[in-house]
């Protein structure tokens, strides 16, 4: 099938690659002068595991090609994976497509414009002629995008048109081997469902973080509480790890959208509060450091392990590390950063900064350090060489923003250890 993909989000590229791999002729809409897909993706997307190779391979096989928008509009199948702020562009695109078609057209919207926006796009097309906009909730997480698209367990799909539903199902067929549920509903319901899921996850994280902060004050270990919570079948273990806040572009933007909707329509501050507390939580490791050194960290050497907003991604969008680096630079501390993937991105932001230094060897970042802040739970940080760490550090102080390490072990080795909620 010929498919045009509109948008520059991770979902757009991952979907393009996977659809091309399963035999479709996929056209990436591109009105710029750039011809190299890797440059076009930008580093934060091309760092997605496996994606760069897949895209290059599919371009080589010519299953994947660039196309200008004026030629793309004549294609009969489209996917919109655009930024939430680009609704106006989406409207223009759909209006253009409408002008070039008198027969059937399928547009699959995967963008997070909000609830009811797929229906708004539909008004630009004639549904009686089977010119249809459907909504397919993307559920990829950065770092696992290809896997998520390849073998989803469930899909939420919004369509009221039989032909469009049939066609979308057949497109998804190669990815349905492990599909347990395909939930078909109206586009508006599907958009709302997608938002609700993200909001629920944010609430869980917000709640466990609040409990962790309280546990700390009551001198209770949050790990124990977490086990007990998870063991309750009504609750389960997912998204119950306390830490120094959530980040990520899509996740944060989606929650912001839902929070705005809630406060506007319902005067409910529930998610706004979660977002505000999350911003505070991002600085929790800084506050522990601050109190440990009695409110003076001027000229201290602070090592940071992990700056990406989560392991498996190089992205820094809304990452807790960014807030901590600003707080540390403002206090005139020197910062020594290691990250397996995100150093290049940090250098782009802080390359010229005299207080910020980057290291490719995680132990080198620890030389003469007055503290180590662990902010991203990359697997390679889970069992480091503690002797080497202690030798290199000036003060054996570890602030573990992800509760990755064992408090008991570290204390027995002579480290001072602070976790989140323990």
């Amino acid at each position, binding site marked *: 099938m010929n498919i045009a993909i509109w948008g520059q989000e991770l979902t757009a590229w991952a979907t393009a690659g996977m659809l091309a791999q399963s035999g479709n002729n996929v056209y990436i809409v591109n009105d710029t002068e750039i011809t190299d897909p890797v440059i076009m993706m930008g580093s934060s997307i091309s760092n997605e595991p496996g994606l760069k190779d897949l895209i290059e391979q599919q371009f080589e096989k010519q299953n994947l090609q660039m196309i200008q928008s004026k030629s793309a509009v004549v294609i009969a199948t489209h996917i919109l994976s655009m930024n939430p702020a680009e609704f106006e562009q989406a409207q223009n695109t759909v209006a253009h497509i409408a002008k070039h078609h008198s027969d059937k057209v399928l547009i699959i919207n995967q963008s997070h414009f909000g609830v009811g926006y797929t229906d708004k796009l539909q008004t630009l097309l004639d549904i009686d002629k089977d010119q249809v906009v459907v909504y397919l909730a993307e559920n990829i997480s950065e770092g696992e995008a290809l896997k998520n698209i390849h073998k989803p367990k469930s899909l939420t799909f919004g369509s009221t048109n039989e032909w469009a539903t049939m066609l979308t199902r057949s497109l998804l067929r190669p990815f349905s081997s492990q599909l347990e549920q395909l939930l078909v509903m109206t586009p508006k319901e599907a958009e709302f469902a997608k938002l609700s899921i993200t909001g629920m996850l944010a609430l869980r994280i917000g709640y466990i973080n609040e409990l962790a902060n309280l546990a700390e004050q009551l001198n209770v270990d949050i790990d124990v509480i977490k086990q007990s919570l998870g063991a309750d079948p009504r609750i389960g273990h997912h998204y119950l790890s306390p830490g120094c806040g959530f980040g990520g572009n899509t996740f944060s933007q989606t929650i912001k959208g839902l929070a705005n909707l809630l406060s506007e329509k319902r005067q409910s501050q529930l998610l706004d509060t979660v977002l505000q507390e999350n911003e*505070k939580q991002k*600085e929790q490791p*800084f*506050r*522990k*450091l*601050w*109190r440990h050194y*009695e*409110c*003076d960290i001027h000229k201290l050497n602070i090592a940071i392990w992990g700056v990406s907003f989560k392991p498996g991604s190089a992205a820094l969008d809304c990452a807790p590390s960014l807030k901590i680096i*600003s*707080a540390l630079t*403002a*206090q005139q501390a020197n910062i020594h950063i290691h990250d397996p993937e995100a150093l290049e991105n940090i250098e782009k932001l802080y390359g010229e900064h005299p207080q910020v230094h980057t290291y490719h060897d995680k132990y080198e970042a620890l030389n003469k350090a007055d503290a180590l802040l662990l902010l991203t739970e990359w697997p390679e940080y889970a069992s480091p060489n503690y002797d080497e760490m202690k030798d290199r550090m000036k003060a054996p102080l570890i602030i573990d923003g992800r509760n990755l390490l064992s408090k008991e072990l570290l204390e027995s080795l002579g480290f001072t250890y602070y976790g989140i909620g323990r």
Partner: protein
Amino acid sequence: MSVKDLPAWEALKEHANSMQTTHLRDLFLQDSYTDKPEPTSRFETFSVSHDGLLLDFSKQRITQKTVSLLKDLSQDCQLDQWKERLFSGDKINTSENRPALHTALRQPYYNQLLLDEHNIVADVHANLAHMSSMVGRIRAGQWRGYSGLPIDTIVNIGVGGSDLGPLMACNALIDAQPETSHQLKVHFVSSMDGSQIANLLNQLSPATTLFIISSKSFTTIDTLSNANTARQWLKSASGVKDDLLNRRHFIGVSASADKMDLWGIPKNSQLNFWDWTGGRYSMWSAIGLPIALHIGMAAFKEMLSGAHAMDEHFKHAPFEKNLPVQLGMIGIWNINFLNIHAHAILPYDGRLSHLPAYLEQLEMESNGKNVNRQGNVIDYHTCPILWGEIGPNAQHAFYQLLHQGTESVMCDFIAPARRYGGFDSTELEQQHQLSLANCLAQSRLLALGDAAIAGNDTAPTHKRYRGNQPSTTLLFNELTPFSFGQLIALYEHKVFVQSVIWDINPFDQWGVELGKKMATDLLKPLTNEQSSSPFDSSTEGLLCAILSQQRQSEQESH
């Protein structure tokens, strides 16, 4: 020689004899009866505008002769020489042997002003730079409290000049706040009895509150007792030691670094100003820190430029075009020749709600004096009683007296022509028009009386308005940091002009000293110490009543 012996004074006195019986209504009538080919109206003759400010003096009981005689008086009093002495840093505050250099606080960095061969403009800008770095850090959310959370609440502890100016400016410039992600709340605490601070502390979070202790001497008991209450509050909430709280939760602003050291303010949290800045002239200095925190450093500097622009105007503009000189000299005419001893300040803009209180201090503490520069008691009036209120609110309070009472009162009507530009609300714009309509209506009615409304001259006496109350209307284009700076500097220089005519020193305030000393004596009997001397029977009686009440409540609580 007294000012009263000057020929210009004599001439004005004589002129006043005829003006005493001239009604403003009749002065305005001459507008329509003139036989000149191109008649100029009273408004054209008696209004002066400069750089966005318009002062309309046409509702003052003056003629061109009055203005020309006032000019003679200002020359006889050597106003120009005094201006020169003020700006050049001459020690014109003779009783304290120092200059009064608030104008230096708003000089641009490239200017130079030598005081004892030292360029104080450089000092001023070094201090502004220090202030700017603090403001930047706090406004960015990077000034951290004891817990590591960013400071989001500022409490300014100060009294008099360390309170009124910043408080007024923060209210006036509320629309000048730049949009930021880190919102700061700024509060002011001044009252000695602790009632303000007690209420406020209940609502604040200790971890994110920063206190500015502002006191020129750093010995003001009102301020230090509030500061100690604040520190104790932080201490009991945090369990953190004093030294750490001092470092992260206090900024000191004072001319006495030693006293700040003694209280525990660390050096890099100290902002200085100088003994050549009077308290009531100090909001341009580090005392303005709450203003800068509220509106940002860029807007604070705009305010300084506005004041500097007024300084330059005051220095160079000729008598007829000089706003502060006109404002001051017409005040002299009202007070000393028309015998008006009450002055109402009436802003028609809610943002200027604290301007009357500010001007009460500026004018009455500066010129409320009865001794001239030679140390002789004088036999003419100086500063009148000054008070005021937001105009539309005052209309429901004391305007009755203005219109139908027995006192002559001079009024300043103050209003911006434009407001609510950035609000996109026709309702609010409508409210502003309503406020302006009231401003114009009141000054017109005060001046003309019944004549303002056709047919009212036949009304029963209790509905009659005698009019002839003089007023100045001060209209500025828009209330911005710049125009606000101009406005305040305008009044500062007006006060100076009057002090020159009255031959008094406007920069000291010996009248507030003895009360402080007496209070120290009276604290003794109240804290069960032996007092050194007996007081008068009234004081003894009151002391006795207080102590017996306090003893009674102690017994009840046991």
